[in-house]
């Protein structure tokens, strides 16, 4: 969770100080390396892509508004994730049930990023990711946070522990339980009326690949 080598500690501190004074551009610069991670993190707490973008922006606005509470006692990224996580948890409590019906497939662009792969492979990858995101959203929030930060984003145990304000042992336990929970969810057959249902209305399928695309042996 460190910044790119070009940005020095003093540089970050300067950006933080400017952002704390209301410099939006400095804040954007500060976030530059974090945007994709925050947006992915938001996807684990939102039921739809559109909702995820909104949620991520809402959380980042909260980070900006709370910026003067940052006192350099931890890495900025740790503090950022802690605030974002708190915003997601608050929002998911408020939005529970409201957004489940809005589930959408992954955007086509994601499949297009599978550089050089065949269309059928790209589609399978997209389906797998979509299924995984959907299952992840059903994992209890405290386990979900650990899974996203550790398994997806590659944070260390210590970093996750600092973000969640829990001991490292708790993080390990949450990861173990979260993975077991996730595996159980993924083992369940997809139900047409369940949260892992195929989004036929959107033009993508989550079940078997279309007949014209056969799985390679």
């Amino acid at each position, binding site marked *: 969770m460190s910044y790119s080598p070009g940005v020095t500690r003093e540089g970050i501190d300067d950006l933080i100080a400017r*952002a*704390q*004074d*209301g410099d*939006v551009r400095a*804040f*954007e610069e500060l976030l530059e390396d974090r*945007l*994709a991670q925050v*947006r*992915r993190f938001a*996807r684990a707490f939102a039921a739809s892509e559109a909702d995820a*973008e909104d949620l*991520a*922006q*809402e959380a*980042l*606005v909260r980070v*900006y*508004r*709370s*910026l*003067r*509470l940052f*006192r350099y*006692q931890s890495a900025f990224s740790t503090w950022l994730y802690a605030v974002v996580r708190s915003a997601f948890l608050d929002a998911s409590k408020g939005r529970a049930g409201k957004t489940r019906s809005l589930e959408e497939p992954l*955007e086509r*662009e*994601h499949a297009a*990023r599978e550089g050089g792969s065949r269309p059928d492979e790209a589609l399978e*990858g997209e389906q*797998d*990711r979509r299924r*995984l*995101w959907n299952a*992840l959203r059903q994992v209890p929030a405290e386990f979900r946070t650990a*899974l996203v930060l550790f*398994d*997806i*984003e*590659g944070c260390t145990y210590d970093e996750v522990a600092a973000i969640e304000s829990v001991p490292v042992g708790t993080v390990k336990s949450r990861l173990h339980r979260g*993975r077991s929970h*996730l*595996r159980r969810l*993924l083992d369940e057959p997809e139900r047409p009326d369940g949260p892992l249902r195929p989004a036929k209305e959107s033009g993508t399928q989550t079940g078997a690949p279309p007949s014209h695309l056969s799985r390679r042996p």
Partner: protein
Amino acid sequence: MSKRGEVEDRDLRDRLRGLRVDPPDGDFQASLRRRLLAAGPPLVPTPWQRLGPRLERPRRLVWPVAGIAAGVLAFFALARLHAQRVLPDGQPPGYVTLLPATKVAVVRLNLSASVAVESAHILVTLPPELAFWVNGQELPQRAFEWTQPLTRGDNEIPIAVRGQRPGRYRIAVSARIGDERVVDEVFLEVVGG
């Protein structure tokens, strides 16, 4: 974890790592900028928020301290309730025992001695509204005195009494050992029914 479990775990972690795909920007940054500008500058922390980090440790102690305080309060509340509870087979001196009128209660007086005493003179005095009860019969006298040895530690003296009418009454107990005299009292509350 079994071999199979490890493989499954590794496979799941690989799949999760595969989710680390950067989402397309679209108009995310432009939209975020609009929201940031609309939100206004960072808020000035309130005095409470300024104290936040310094209060972090005390705040962590709030629940344990509250738990201990609740425990202590519960102990005192229970002790009080215990003192007021109906205990037909008696109570140590100083407690209030509830006794339904016309029922017999055994009140256990406890004389605690720091050394064994060969001969102690004991006097128990009842108010007119209470009576001693022996072998299924009410005794007319309201005071009883006798001499007995006391062992070191607690010496329990059970006396059976019966209340005539509702009210709170005091049973006086005195023990005389040589020139030394110890006086104690037990309250008995006779209630209707």
